[in-house]
């Protein structure tokens, strides 16, 4: 009965694995942050450094009362975080972990991914509005400003990769990185796009972190200022969906970064392809988590000014550089 597609959707890279990986990411997030701040972090929930802590939290959240504020708009209050979680899981379905392990291989994989990302500020704005309370609404509006401002540099920095690869299919983009750039005798530089697209990769990393709303760009949540922002009123299970959606996006964006810039499942050593993808995803997501432990939060005006001026200008500069790199050798 288990057709390959059913297995892919239900187990890997689909729903079951997404759930387990989110739990592991939450643990990784707490553990790395704790280590940077000279704490121990989760410790007791298993022999191995509290790996099972997130599962224990999940059980705790599942038993909490599902309390909906009286004046809230019930439909959107419930639907928005659940839809955000489902949409984030849909993003993972577009990622090729290896050519075989991909749920849907679209011709326009990259723009489809980015187009789905643009749906999320609407859900967060609705979640903040529906709670009918001040702090959630401020958080929703901040999310709207931040995500719509940073979408544009995100698209523009991804254009560089499309120009170099000549395709928007994610598998095609990885295969275009197979050819090494320079092979001296005994020296091997992999043809990953992080080398010619260094500026684009940096911009993509920054804007993706802003799209995920993680520190230093977590203004919509901003615990000390607006008390978790749009998530403030959410009860147990719904808060879990809202927080889980943010970690699904961390997973999906780390995977997309490793596909676009780090050569996906290919690597210089004879290791199984899936392991390469896993190593790259863990490295990228650990970097993003380290940012959280290292940098202070920016202000909303600083964020928007930087987004609309520096990042946008650098994204255009990156397109010009890529044009010279692609067309230059032909002249």
């Amino acid at each position, binding site marked *: 009965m288990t057709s390959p597609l059913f297995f892919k959707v239900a187990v890997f890279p689909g729903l079951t694995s997404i759930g387990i990986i989110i739990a592991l990411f939450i643990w990784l997030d707490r553990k790395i942050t704790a280590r940077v701040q000279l704490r121990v972090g989760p410790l007791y929930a298993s022999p191995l450094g509290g790996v099972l802590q997130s599962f224990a939290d999940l059980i705790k959240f599942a038993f909490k009362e599902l309390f909906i504020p009286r004046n809230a708009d019930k439909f959107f209050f419930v639907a928005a975080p659940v839809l955000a979680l489902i949409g984030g899981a849909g993003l993972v379905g577009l990622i090729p972990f290896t050519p075989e392990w991909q749920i849907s291989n679209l011709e*326009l994989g990259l*723009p489809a991914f980015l187009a*789905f990302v*643009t*749906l999320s500020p*609407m859900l967060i*704005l609705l979640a903040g*509005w529906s709670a009918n309370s001040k702090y959630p609404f401020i958080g929703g509006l901040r999310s709207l400003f931040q995500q*719509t401002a940073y*979408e544009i540099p995100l698209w523009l920095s991804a254009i560089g990769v499309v120009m170099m690869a000549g395709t928007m299919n994610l598998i095609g983009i990885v295969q275009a990185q197979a050819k090494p750039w320079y092979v001296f005798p005994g020296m091997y530089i992999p043809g990953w796009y992080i080398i010619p697209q260094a500026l684009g990769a940096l911009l993509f990393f920054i804007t993706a972190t802003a799209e995920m709303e993680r520190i230093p760009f977590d203004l919509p949540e901003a615990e000390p200022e607006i008390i978790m922002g749009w998530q403030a009123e959410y009860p147990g299970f719904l808060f879990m969906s809202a927080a889980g959606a943010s970690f699904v996006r961390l997973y999906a964006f780390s995977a997309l970064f490793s596909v676009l810039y780090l050569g996906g499942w290919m690597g210089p050593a004879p290791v199984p392809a899936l392991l390469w993808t896993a190593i790259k995803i863990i490295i990228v997501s650990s970097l993003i988590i380290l940012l959280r432990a290292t940098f202070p939060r920016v202000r909303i005006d600083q964020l928007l000014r930087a987004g609309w001026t520096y990042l946008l200008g650098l994204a255009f500069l990156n397109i010009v550089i890529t044009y010279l790199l692609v067309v230059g050798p032909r002249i």
Partner: protein
Amino acid sequence: MPDIAFFGFAAVTVLGAILALESRDLVYGAVSLGVSFLGVASLFFLLDAAYIGVFQIAVYIGAVVILILFTVMLVGPAKGEGPTEFRRTALFIGILVAMMLGVGGALASPSAFSTNQPCTPECDLAQFSQSLLVTYSVQLAVLSLVFAAAVIGALTLAKSERGTA
């Protein structure tokens, strides 16, 4: 199978459009409008115009619906919702009937439009980009100028609003 998909997406589109105009709360109206746009995007996928579908999702739902939601939330829910005038509903029904008559006419007339032909070279992304960036490059440049004008205009309006208020 494509027929079922077509009717499903068509139903989503039409229901979303009707709800967008008739829902009591403007926020629900804006979200229904987004659902309707999503239905149209799916229909573009059925018509082998995947790029248009993605563009539709990114621009309409990612930008237009969000702008509308933002405006609705700023303006407040119940502004400007007077009672619907029923004389005009009759006008609507008349227009609808006329449209359906037009569809009937299109059905009756034999046409050069055939059904299930493959669309390999013409609907290709390369062909599309060629057409957009080479054949219609001047139009694209003019469009970007119009864009700049629109952005400056919207910013001017927003600024003067802050000045007078």
